[in-house]
Structure formats: structure tokens, C-alpha cells
């Protein structure tokens, strides 16, 4: 049944809209200004180096998520499939490539700009998946620009000094290639400043997420999907730092006043895996109506990096981008999730089996069952996709979620 209780809107969202708009307008201007340069970068890629060189940085995965959230991915994926990309490969990639082939961008409706900015350079880091390499290659050919990548060793249990040294070496090589290609000289002091800003924004974001440990939680995973934009798009800028200071202040105030993101919070849920972008509003409403706060996630924590306390910025970049959850082995991931369940006092977890994103799906090798037994909490696995709505059955998923809540209710009888 639909809840009659209204959500308490997050005030900072007005500021968020303004800075995201300014970010895209600036990118658009930069792409049309011969004196400015634009680089495309993966979401946990070497953006600090690009910013220190003076590039404006654009993130194609954000475009993939926008296509999904606007519920249009499935219209463009067939264009990429026709061009030879498998329909079951990353739907961020296929929808983004398909929309480029079709000449459509949601940025036009949202910000009145033609679409993604024309790049001068493409950079990626395979710490999240190998697909980005192929995705970037498509655009490298399309725009006839260099595609430069960082390839850390994957599936790491322990991140050893030699792993970090290897990635640092790759970053150095990236710097040298950019310097040669564009006739630039990297200012390492400037890189240190950018990394400090990146780290500062990341720590503030982490503190925002940590406010969800409160009972009731002031913020949800679904809120996080909206408010994480600056830590991705504006990482390494003062704008991101300022925004998270504002958001953290609001969340701390909510905690002090006992303001709940989900009125009458009955259950505390963890979300593991990618969002289902085309159905996030429906899912958010459904959990809200059931009195279940989905308040913590692995996904929103993807940009929660360590503090930068001075020293070598390249080493910090190598370490943080290699240590991320998605680049780790099963045992590490299981330990991480167990810690998170405990930290956020979780009643149950939802694992999203994203059909086109095996790398960011952790229900494929028995982890959900192992954690269920280990932590003695119900775990629901839902089938879907991050962007391609054709892999998602709304009626089946909503029933699954309701049954999951009924299961939680039975446990407290």
C-alpha cells in the first residue's frame, strides 16, 4: 500500500542542481574553445592528473547512467549491437555507443547542450572492468584521439607495495605521454593540491554516508545515487569539497533532530551491486512504502578513498585506485560486506545480479549464500540490469522485495 507520509527533501539538492549544471555548461564551452582541452576519464580513473594538466574532465559512465535513468537505454543499445557489440556486454557501454551513433544525448534535454564534449584525449583505468578499454577505443577511433590506460592487477586479496609501484609506474608513463603529446609539463605541486581536494571531497562523502549509521537513517542509498555526482564529476575541485561540507552539515543536523529519510524506519537494508537506473524511483518508493530504509551500499562507497596526508600524490592515486572494492578478490569482498552489515546494523541485504555487469555483481559465486549463513540475515538476489530495462521484470522484482520484507517481519515475531 502506498504510504501517505511524505519524504523530507534534502535542502542541498538545490545547490547540487546548480553545480552540476555549471559543470556541464563549462564542459560544453571548453569543447568549443580552442584554448581549452577536454579529457574523458573513467569514474575511478586518473582524473587528478588530467585536472592538474588543466584538462576539463568528462565521465562517459555518467552519460550511461543518465541514459538509464531517463529510461531510454533500450532504444539505443540495438544501434551498438548492430555495430558488433554484444547485447549482454556492459549496457553503459552499449547504450552510450548506441546513443552516439544515433546522435542523441540526454544532456540536451537536461542542460541544453549538444551532447558529450568533443575530447582531446581519452583515459581509462581497468580497475573497475576491462570493458572500458573497448568502450574508449570506440570513441578514440570516432574522434581520432589518443586512448591511454592504466591497467592495475585485478582481483587482489592484499594490495602489496609492488602492486602500487606497478600502477604508479603506469601513472608516470601516462604523465610522460600526455606531456609529449600536448607539449605540457606537469606541475607536481598542482597535482598535490588536486589530490588533496580529491581526498578531502572523498572523506566528506564518506562522512555523509556514515551518518546512515544513525537510527533512523537521515539518508538512503537512493539519495546517495543523486548526491554522489560531485565526488565523481568534480573530484579534485573545491566545488566538490564545498558541496559535501554543505551536505554533511545538513545530514548532521538531521541526525541531531532525528529526521528520518524513511518515515517509520522498520528495517535497515544494504544494497550490493549496481543501481537499476531506469527503476530507481520505483524501487525507492517501494522500499519507502514498506518502511524499509536502504541505507548503505557498496556502490556509493566506491568513491570513499583514504585521506591524503601529503607525500607523493602519484602513490596516493596508485594506492586508492588499486585498493577499490571492485578490484579485489572474493574473500576481501566478503569481509568488506560483513563489516558493512555490522557497521550499519543491517537487517537484510539485496544483491543486484546485473545481467550486463558481471564485474560489479557479487551474487554469482555463492557470496550471498555464504554471507546469509555467516551473518544470519536474509539476503535477496534480484535479477536486473544497471541500464537495460529489458532484463528487469518489475512485477517479479517488486513481489520479491515484498516477500523479503515479509520474511524480515516473520523474524521479529
Amino acid at each position, binding site marked *: 500500500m502506498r504510504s501517505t507520509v511524505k519524504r523530507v527533501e534534502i535542502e542541498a539538492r538545490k545547490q547540487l542542481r546548480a553545480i552540476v549544471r555549471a559543470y556541464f555548461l563549462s564542459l560544453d564551452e571548453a569543447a568549443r574553445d580552442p584554448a581549452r582541452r577536454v579529457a574523458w576519464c573513467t569514474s575511478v580513473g586518473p582524473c587528478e592528473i588530467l585536472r592538474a594538466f588543466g584538462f576539463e574532465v568528462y565521465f562517459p559512465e555518467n552519460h550511461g547512467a543518465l541514459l538509464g535513468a531517463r529510461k531510454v537505454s533500450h532504444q539505443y543499445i540495438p544501434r551498438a549491437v548492430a555495430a558488433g557489440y554484444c547485447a549482454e556486454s556492459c549496457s553503459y557501454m552499449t547504450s552510450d555507443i548506441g546513443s552516439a551513433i544515433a546522435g542523441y544525448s540526454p544532456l540536451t534535454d537536461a542542460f541544453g547542450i549538444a551532447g558529450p564534449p568533443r575530447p582531446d584525449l581519452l583515459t581509462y583505468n581497468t580497475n573497475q572492468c576491462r570493458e572500458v578499454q573497448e568502450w574508449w577505443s570506440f570513441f578514440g577511433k570516432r574522434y581520432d584521439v589518443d586512448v591511454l590506460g592504466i591497467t592495475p592487477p585485478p582481483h587482489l586479496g592484499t594490495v602489496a607495495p609492488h602492486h602500487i609501484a606497478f600502477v604508479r609506474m603506469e601513472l608516470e608513463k601516462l604523465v610522460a605521454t600526455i606531456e609529449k603529446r600536448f607539449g605540457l609539463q606537469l606541475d607536481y605541486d598542482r597535482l598535490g593540491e588536486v589530490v588533496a581536494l580529491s581526498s578531502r571531497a572523498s572523506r566528506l562523502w564518506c562522512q555523509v554516508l556514515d551518518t546512515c549509521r544513525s537510527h533512523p537513517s537521515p539518508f538512503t542509498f537512493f539519495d546517495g545515487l543523486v548526491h554522489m555526482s560531485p565526488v565523481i564529476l568534480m573530484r579534485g575541485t573545491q566545488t566538490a569539497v564545498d558541496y559535501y561540507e554543505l551536505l554533511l552539515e545538513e545530514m548532521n543536523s538531521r541526525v541531531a533532530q532525528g529526521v528520518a529519510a524513511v518515515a517509520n524506519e522498520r528495517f535497515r537494508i544494504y544494497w550490493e551491486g549496481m543501481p537499476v537506473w531506469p527503476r530507481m524511483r520505483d524501487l525507492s518508493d517501494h522500499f519507502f512504502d514498506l518502511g524499509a530504509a536502504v541505507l548503505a551500499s557498496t556502490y556509493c562507497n566506491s568513491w570513499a578513498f583514504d585521506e591524503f596526508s601529503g607525500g607523493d600524490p602519484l602513490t596516493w592515486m596508485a594506492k586508492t585506485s588499486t585498493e577499490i572494492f571492485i578490484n579485489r578478490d572474493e574473500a576481501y569482498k566478503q569481509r568488506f560486506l560483513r563489516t558493512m552489515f555490522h557497521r550499519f546494523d543491517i537487517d537484510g541485504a539485496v544483491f543486484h545480479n546485473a545481467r550486463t555487469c558481471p564485474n560489479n555483481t557479487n551474487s554469482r559465486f555463492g557470496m550471498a549464500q555464504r554471507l546469509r549463513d555467516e551473518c544470519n540475515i536474509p539476503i535477496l538476489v534480484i535479477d536486473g540490469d544497471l541500464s537495460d530495462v529489458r532484463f528487469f521484470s518489475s512485477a*517479479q522484482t517488486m513481489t520479491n522485495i515484498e516477500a523479503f520484507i*515479509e520474511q524480515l517481519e516473520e523474524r521479529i515475531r
Partner: protein
Amino acid sequence: MSKSFYVGIDVGSSATKCVLLRADSRIICCSMAPSGFSYKDSVAAALESVLCQADATREDIAACVSTGYGRKLASIADRQVTELSCHARGAREWYPQVRHIIDIGGQDTKVIRLNDHGQMADYRMNAKCAAGTGTFLESIAAKLGLPLCKVDALAMLSSSDTVVNSYCTVFAGTEVIERIREGQPQEDIAMGLFRSIASRIREMMPARSGEVSATGGVVAHCPAMVRALEEALETTILLPPKPQHAGAYGAALLAQTTIDVGRRAETHASRR
């Protein structure tokens, strides 16, 4: 007459089932109506049928719980509960010793595991695909130009261990045509279809654990399905008295629940 009846309505994708229960949990009568285009009409038809059989009116209903995909469209219901909880509740009443319940519906297949207290410990549903559901069988039967009961009767004549291997309904249809072309006996092909579903269900069973109860329209009408499940799961399948009404029965039993679940959950939240 006082308000002495409890009603469970299961608004499924193919049929709407209704069970009328007495306060002592005894089933008075059952009904079924095709869900068709209008779930509201099918709910009304199924409800009126049981009331007519019991010579009762809506005024005699003490409480009603609806379940199934169309549960939210049953305006008479005091509460909506998912079919997973209802099937678990219904099967538990019939077979308290059973820990696994399989429900093969038109639109989906569910495997529910109960804990020692009879609570739903875990459950799985088929992925977004017709494979392993009643729709799979109906679709292939239609392709063969036979009613499902004839496919079932044919399958019961089979003595081979043929399996249709394809997961996808469309590919399974192609595989059936290939086997016809190869000259395989029709009864073996028919049995292979039921084994295909049983094989999908086997994947959804987390562990073998004694007897299993099966519910839903497919097992109600197709003995070959029960045979295929027993072969695949290597266990006895317990078929309740009214397999297709198990969800509605569970809903009617839940209608008898007097404890307010919502209030209890709020208490849980306030204790934290």
C-alpha cells in the same frame, strides 16, 4: 449469520483462485475464475462463487487477504501478502514436516525453504524468463497443436529418459521440432518437456531435504510434472488436496491472523 468466514484470494496471471475458510481453519469451498483482461472482474467472480456455494454474503466475511500478481486489485482485501508467504503458509498447514515448497505458476516458479519454525527462511524465483513455468508448457503445447492435458497424457506413456535441454521457450520449441524430425517418439518428447522444467527447478533448490510439497496449476493438472520432479529431486513430492488453491488457502489462513504485523514491526524499530 455472524462474520465467521475468512477469505483468501490468489489473483494469478492465468487464474484467480478463492478459498473460503471457517474459523477452525476448515475449507468450506473453493472457486476459480480465469484472470483474463480484468482482475477486478475475476476477483468478483471467484468471490461470488464461494459465497454462493456457502450461502453467504460479503457481510459474513470476517477478514480477507489477497495474494498473487494482481493482489493489489482485490479491493475487498484487508491486507495484501505476497504469494511466497501465502504458499509457505498453506503448505505448512497441510504438511508441517515439509521444508521445501515448489510452486509452478503460469508466470513464475518459486522454491520456498522453511526453517524449523515453519517460517520462510529463504526463497528463489525463476529469472525473468518463461523457462521453468507453466507458460513454457502452454507455449510448446500450442506449438504442437495439443491441449496441455494431452501432452501430459502422452508424457506418462514414456519410458525413456529424454530431456529437452534448451532453457529458452523459443529454442525449446525448435529443439522439439528437431526431435520430431529425427523421429523420436512423441511420448518421449512430451516427457522431455516436463524434465526441462524439473531441471530448472533443481537449480533453484539450495539443498535436498526430505519430502517436498508442490503446488500450482501445473502439478494439479499434470502428473507427468510430479513424476519429473520426483526424478530430478530424488524425493517424494507431496501434492496437497488442492494444489492450485494453496496460495489462496495460505491467504485465508493469514486472514485469521489476529496479530497486527505492522504494529509488531514498529515495536521492533522502536526497540533499537
